[in-house]
């Protein structure tokens, strides 16, 4: 069951640097939100505040039915990081099992579920491989599988495909849509890629830097499931051009 989430008046500073300034954002339950913006605009900081890993100086994150703390205790938040952060001494299956072990919920019957996740992310046959034996894209897929292992109601992805080349990225975009469509957790995707954001998201949050703030929230009208050739349609391009314009205008300064 996905959860709706609201970020209210959240501000966060690191010394003189104001990473987030009065952020107001609501994510409907089961929605997919992309956050884009230039480097240093606070995208990752926002994600960490939403996850509860970082406490804001002011404001709060409230969920429709529970608190972030409760969600964490039940393991209902899944998160992936830019560099996949896999434990190098564990195999693919063991890495995916990690959240369950921490939550003391690892039982023998979970093995089937982990195997299913391995298949879901398209890594069948690699269950016993170590991260060093996998490519960057494969490691990210393990990270996503790990984020999904507890059936999260909130899924947070921090630039998961940043280090991948265009072709692989496209493939991963399609994979992510396929995986997400299964249970539709409330998802936040932080990304540099405008096209990725438009393809995957229901709404796109455009952020600006110094101080970190939301400059625009744009609805994405395309219906799901979105086909591969969406990337080539003129409607798609119109939207990405518009977003690019916003971003560049934001950079030009007041």
């Amino acid at each position, binding site marked *: 069951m996905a959860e709706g989430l609201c970020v209210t008046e959240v501000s966060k500073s690191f010394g003189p640097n104001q990473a987030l300034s009065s952020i107001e954002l609501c994510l409907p339950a089961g929605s997919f939100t992309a956050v884009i913006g230039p480097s240093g605009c606070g995208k990752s900081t926002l994600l960490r505040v939403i996850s509860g890993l970082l406490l804001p100086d002011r404001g709060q994150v409230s969920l429709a039915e529970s608190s972030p703390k409760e969600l964490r205790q039940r393991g209902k938040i899944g998160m992936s990081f830019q560099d996949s952060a896999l434990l190098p001494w564990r195999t693919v299956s063991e890495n995916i099992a990690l959240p369950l072990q921490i*939550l003391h919920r690892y039982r023998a019957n979970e093995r089937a579920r982990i195997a299913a996740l391995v298949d879901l992310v398209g890594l069948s046959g690699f269950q016993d491989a170590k991260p060093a034996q996998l490519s960057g894209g494969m490691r990210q897929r393990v990270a996503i599988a790990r984020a999904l292992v507890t059936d999260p109601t909130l899924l947070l992805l921090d630039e998961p495909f940043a280090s991948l080349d265009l072709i692989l990225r496209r493939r991963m975009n399609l994979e992510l849509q396929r995986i997400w469509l299964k249970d539709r957790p409330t998802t936040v995707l932080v990304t540099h890629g405008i096209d990725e954001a438009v393809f995957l998201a229901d709404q796109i949050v455009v952020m600006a830097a110094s101080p970190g703030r939301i400059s625009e929230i744009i609805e994405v009208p395309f219906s799901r499931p979105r086909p591969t050739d969406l990337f080539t349609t003129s409607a798609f391009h119109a939207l990405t051009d518009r977003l690019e314009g916003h971003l560049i205008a934001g950079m030009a300064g007041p």
Partner: protein
Amino acid sequence: MVLWQLASVAGFLPRDAIPSPLNVLVELWSNREAYASNLAATVFAASIGYLIGNILAVAAAVVFVRLPVVERLARGMNMIAFAVPAIAIGPLLAIAFQGVAPQIILAALSVYFITMSVTMAGLREVDPDALALVHLYGASRWSAFRWIRLRSALPHIMSGLRASVTSALLGAMLAEFGTGATGLGSYLLASMSLGRPERVWGIAMVTTTTSLLLFHLISWIAARVTWQPISTFATTGFARTDDRPASRSARFFVAAMATLLPFVFWQSLPLLLNLSPAVIQTPSEIWTYLTSGPEAVTAWASILSAAKQTIPLAIAGMALGGVAALSLALARTFFPSLGQAIVAPVLLLQSMPLVALTPLIILALGRGAAATLAISTSVCFYPAFLTLAQALEGTPEAALDVLRLYRASPLQMLRIVILQYLTPYLFTAARLVAPTGLLGVMTAEWLATGYGFGGLMNEARGNLDYGMIWTVASITVFISLGLYELILAIERAVRSLRES
């Protein structure tokens, strides 16, 4: 080996310094019970000390990482554990403890610092995202520790275990110098005066072989357990802690406490160990001994003359060892084939414990300053070499490629790029070998020349001059720490000079 035998038979080698290998083997065989029992005694004590020392080191590292305040408070004690020349502590332990205990304690002390600092580095070098992930699922600090930090530090712990094998053996043997108990160390001392080079070589070979075997045993175990090798030398030393207390006065207070703690410990030793007060000399008693006691004048004179002999040789040994290490490391970078050729003898040098090497050098160079200097140089050489070789390997290739593009000469590459990256490691290497250089000189003095602090300690031990024993021990620790701090101060001065 064959070359050795031929050279010996042909009379190329000085007969009284380097016997033929056949003679050595004959000697080994004919005295095998003596060798076996001495070896067993030393290995026994060294192994127990090794276990205790390493367990303590890992436990201490865990506590220090968990509670940085404790680490800062313990810094004084840790520095002493790092800086103390093991040979100086031997007689002290012999006074205070019976039986095998001195060997065990010195072996444990010898392994403690290196394993502790490497483990601390390993516990700290964790992927921050992995830690964040674990917190995401509500893991407590203990869970995070258990799942991530400890496992992540395992290769570091393994490399500490590997590197400390030789130290444990060395510690046990040096303790035997002080106690005279059964073991290879005592056996060696006895053989030095017999005028039988075969036996000296025999003991050296046995020691080296044992050290190599144990090293490979631990390496084999480590390889089965971990997934990547870690070098010990770049991480040895005092890591910077991340969290600092808020105020300057708090920092000063903690630093002061850290410095005082060893003295407090020392002063309370008579209570802790329940021994005759004459045997344990507290700091206040040492002060009296040196300033107003009955033999103050002669004692002070002996200390000063010993210092004049030991300290210059220690510094010279460090300097020569450092220069040799630097030259070899640079040669390896610019002439890789030469590097390959050098590696084998260097590896052999490393596996010979100080106590095995020293008698051999004394046989070759006689009982004088030359031998002392050679010993000090050779023990300083290897750690410095490893540190510098690693530093050179860490120089970014891209920077060098830019120079290569303009066909820079090796000298230019050295001056423009390499030196920049190398300089901090030069100081790290120097600090690393400061106590070792002193130890090398004192060992040579003890075994051969009779001069300096090594000779003074040996003499005091023979005379049961407790005041002198404790004085020499504490002064050598101070000198060792002083050298360390001096190098640190020079490093800071150089850095601020470069930054201005």
